């Protein structure tokens, strides 16, 4: 499955889509990126007069790329159906702040994908290869049967 086909299958839209492109994807992992727009809705309140990307949004970005895009790819060979998604756990360390306009690169590596549960080691870096956050994310990806 091609990166553009994976992105087309994502069940998110503005203002909650945090995926721009996928650089590489194979059975072991995925690398993708997103540029935070300067006018994202949450910058108005996080923080007052000092916009910084919230940790929950960084986690969401890593989950959308590292778990959902990757999961769509992993399941594309076995089924063409839509997916039922549920995030089941996250453990993330946040190392550096992400500001409006920053481009982030998400690198996801499969720990296991069994019984519809995908568990991945994820890392977010900037264009200078500095690690912004890192951790473990897992979720359930269940093909919807019609």
């Amino acid at each position, binding site marked *: 499955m091609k990166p553009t086909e994976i992105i087309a299958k994502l069940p998110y839209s503005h203002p909650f889509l945090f995926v721009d492109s996928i650089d590489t994807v194979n059975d072991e992992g995925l690398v993708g990126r997103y540029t935070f727009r300067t006018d994202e809705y949450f910058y108005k309140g996080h923080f007052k007069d000092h916009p910084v990307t919230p940790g929950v949004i960084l986690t969401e970005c890593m989950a959308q790329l590292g778990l959902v895009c990757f999961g769509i790819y992993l399941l594309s060979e076995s089924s063409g159906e839509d997916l039922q998604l549920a995030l*089941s*756990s996250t453990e993330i360390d946040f190392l550096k702040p992400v500001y409006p306009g920053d481009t982030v690169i998400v690198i996801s590596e499969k720990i*296991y994908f069994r*019984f519809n549960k995908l568990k991945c080691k994820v890392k977010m870096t900037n264009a200078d290869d500095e690690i912004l956050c890192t951790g473990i994310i897992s*979720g*359930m990806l269940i093909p919807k049967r019609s």
Partner: protein
Amino acid sequence: MTSEEIYTKLQPIIAAYLPEDVSAENIKKDADLTQELNINSAHLVDVVLDVEDAFDIELSNNDLESLRTVNDAIAIIANKVEN
């Protein structure tokens, strides 16, 4: 391996994934893992992976689909350990 031995070995594996408000005493043989013990589907997979390691067996998707209660788990394990 008797079903009692399997049950004894299985209890701490399940207990590790119980939510805070469910006590290990609730791991009765007829207890439903998701409905009564409140183990979510992701943790049910963790239970299965830990069972595979502890008993040195491999479970299939069909095994997972037939897994509802502690008794189901004991039966699946007993069947695999024997073979």
